[in-house]
């Protein structure tokens, strides 16, 4: 009897340990207790962030989580993974002196971008092609966290920034958090009650030691989880292997030299060809209003909403993304997400903002 019981007990204990282990593994990292850090005012913190002129040498994984609630659109290729709800991981390395490396891993392929100080190499494994361009990294990837473009006097700049923000928002340091295993201050920007916005607050985690921003979260009304979040899920600050910032194209790879055209496609600079947009309102409920030539209707939406997709049929996409709306103000498509709304009217008028529909309609009235 006892042998039988012992077997069952041992078995049950093993199963329990295994299940608990799975639970621990499945738990998101960094959910530890908030670290204890010396008190700091929002102003001081912003100032020290601005003082940090450049990123230290680091290796990390940047995780972007998207809960915008955009309907999924098939056929967008690479772009779809940033648009659809879900999580995207990007690996970044920098030596702190301007050289850098970005890696966008996919399940079975990878895009690697290396800036070795003089040349940007953009390697895509799925077609074994390297794009080589001589020039600064910012040209190729403006989204990359770059440095050195801040006003000369940090203290002054900090005051300006805070003052500017404070017109429509409340700024405060709201406790501390652990991000990617590092202690960080949480800076919270919340709209003042008069702002007619869908957003609730924006939280920025600032590393307590190096003062680099570790995480940015956007929270919307009526949703406890961030609708969008980008930040380090893993961060290791320290000298990096110099070999990471060099690139030698593999023997049989196709190398395209100095071809800016392909790289440009990745950027939303189609907007340059469009009429200058007009901003209506200030602060959180600012609405971007634009009048597009009728033929460009679809592209206007693409510019505003999807950041650099490839070519596709705009009206078809609008039908997939949004719903048909109409009113005394006109008729068109409305695309709604957790953080904002866009109205694209048939007559070419477009309004976009982090606001409910009514605010867009009001703004549209100001453009003829």
């Amino acid at each position, binding site marked *: *009897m006892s*042998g039988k019981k012992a077997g069952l007990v041992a078995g049950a204990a093993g199963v329990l340990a295994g299940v608990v282990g799975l639970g621990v593994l499945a738990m998101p990292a960094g959910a530890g207790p908030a670290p204890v850090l010396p008190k700091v005012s929002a102003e001081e913190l912003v100032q020290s962030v601005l003082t940090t002129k450049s990123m230290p040498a680091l290796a990390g994984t940047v995780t972007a989580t998207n809960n915008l609630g955009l309907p999924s659109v098939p056929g967008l290729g690479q772009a779809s993974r940033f648009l659809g709800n879900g999580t995207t991981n990007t690996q970044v390395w920098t030596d702190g002196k301007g050289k850098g490396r970005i890696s966008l891993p996919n399940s079975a392929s990878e895009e690697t971008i290396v800036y070795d100080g003089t040349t940007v190499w953009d390697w895509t494994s799925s077609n074994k092609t390297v794009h080589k361009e001589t020039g600064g990294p910012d040209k190729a990837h403006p989204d990359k966290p770059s440095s050195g473009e801040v006003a000369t006097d940090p203290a002054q700049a900090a005051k300006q920034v805070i003052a500017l923000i404070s017109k429509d928002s409340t700024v405060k340091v709201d406790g501390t958090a652990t991000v990617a295993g590092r202690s960080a201050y949480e800076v919270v920007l919340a709209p003042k009650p008069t702002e007619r916005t869908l957003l609730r607050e924006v939280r920025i985690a600032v590393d307590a030691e190096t003062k680099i921003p570790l995480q940015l979260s956007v929270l919307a009304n009526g949703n406890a989880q961030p609708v969008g979040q980008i930040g380090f899920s893993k961060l290791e600050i320290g000298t990096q292997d110099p070999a990471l910032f060099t690139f030698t194209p593999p023997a049989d790879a196709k190398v395209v030299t100095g071809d800016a055209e392909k790289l440009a496609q990745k950027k939303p600079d189609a907007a340059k060809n469009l009429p200058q947009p007009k901003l209506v309102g200030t602060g959180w409920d600012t609405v971007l209003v634009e009048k597009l030539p009728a033929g460009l209707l679809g592209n206007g939406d693409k510019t505003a909403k999807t950041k650099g997709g490839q070519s596709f049929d705009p009206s078809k996409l609008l039908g997939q993304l949004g719903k048909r709306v109409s009113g005394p103000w006109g008729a068109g498509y409305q695309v709604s997400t957790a953080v904002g709304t866009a109205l694209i009217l048939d007559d070419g008028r477009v309004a976009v903002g982090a606001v409910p529909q009514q605010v867009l309609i009001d703004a549209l009235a100001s453009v003829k």
Partner: protein
Amino acid sequence: MTTTSLVEPGVGAAVAAPALAARTRGLRKTYGSTVAVDQVDLDVPDGAVLGMLGPNGSGKTTTIRMLLGLVQPTAGEVELLGHPMPGGAQITLPHVGALVEGPGFHPFLSGRENLRRIASAEPLMATSAIASSVDEALSRVGLSDAADRRYRGYSLGMKQRLGLASVLLLPRRLVVLDEPTNGLDPAGTREIRRVIAELHAAGTTVLVSSHLLAEIEATCTHVAVLHKGSVVAQGELAELLEAGAPALIVSTPDVELSLDSLRDNGIAARSTEDGLFVELIGTSAPKVVKVLVESGAEVHEVRRRRTGLEELFAQLTEGETQ
């Protein structure tokens, strides 16, 4: 019997005289609402060849499986070679060879490979002795020639003999054979009997189960009869065979004449279907025969009635299957 002399100091005081190789008390096993074995108090004397006799489904195999610690009893206790089971399995089972529920071997391996595999698992087997032990066991059961053929191609008799060989890999204290002659031809059956006799001569206790009385009679010193999950009789074979009043069965067409002359001589007798039934009370068999011959009756056959065991077993098996 010399059973007590087999007890060694190493066995310990747990075993009281007369020494028992196996002992159960109040053994009970139920599967759901089905009672397979109930209140079995079995004694297997050390050095004995105990036949476990019972019709199919009488609980023989279940009892054996509980003895070997393969099955946990619902209630009751089991002692094997002086150690409680199944707790003492690691102590006792190395000394026990068993063939339960038919031989179990892998069809794609040869007889030799199958035996090697079992020999490797035997705790008391020296690694260096595996090859020679396997050869010896194969030759003891007469399978040397077929040793390298696949088990798949063996006849039923060869399979049974390979099973026996697995028991003979090592000298044992106790050998348990569950229905060893199942599916064997008369020659195979004789082979099994010879092996059992050899084991007995070497001092090994043998527990053999069978649903055939003749097999038990031919090989066993002791017998336990199981019926519907309970032991209905057990003891030395000779005692059980002799139990009950002795009697003669006379086969004769001249029933009246015989009956009269016997009664005239004060011998108790009654008529049966094809002859007479004569009780040997206050008389003897030769005297009965003499009276019958002198009466002039035509006597075809006179035999001693096998009382006790045979009677009992006949009663048990009647109406069971036939």
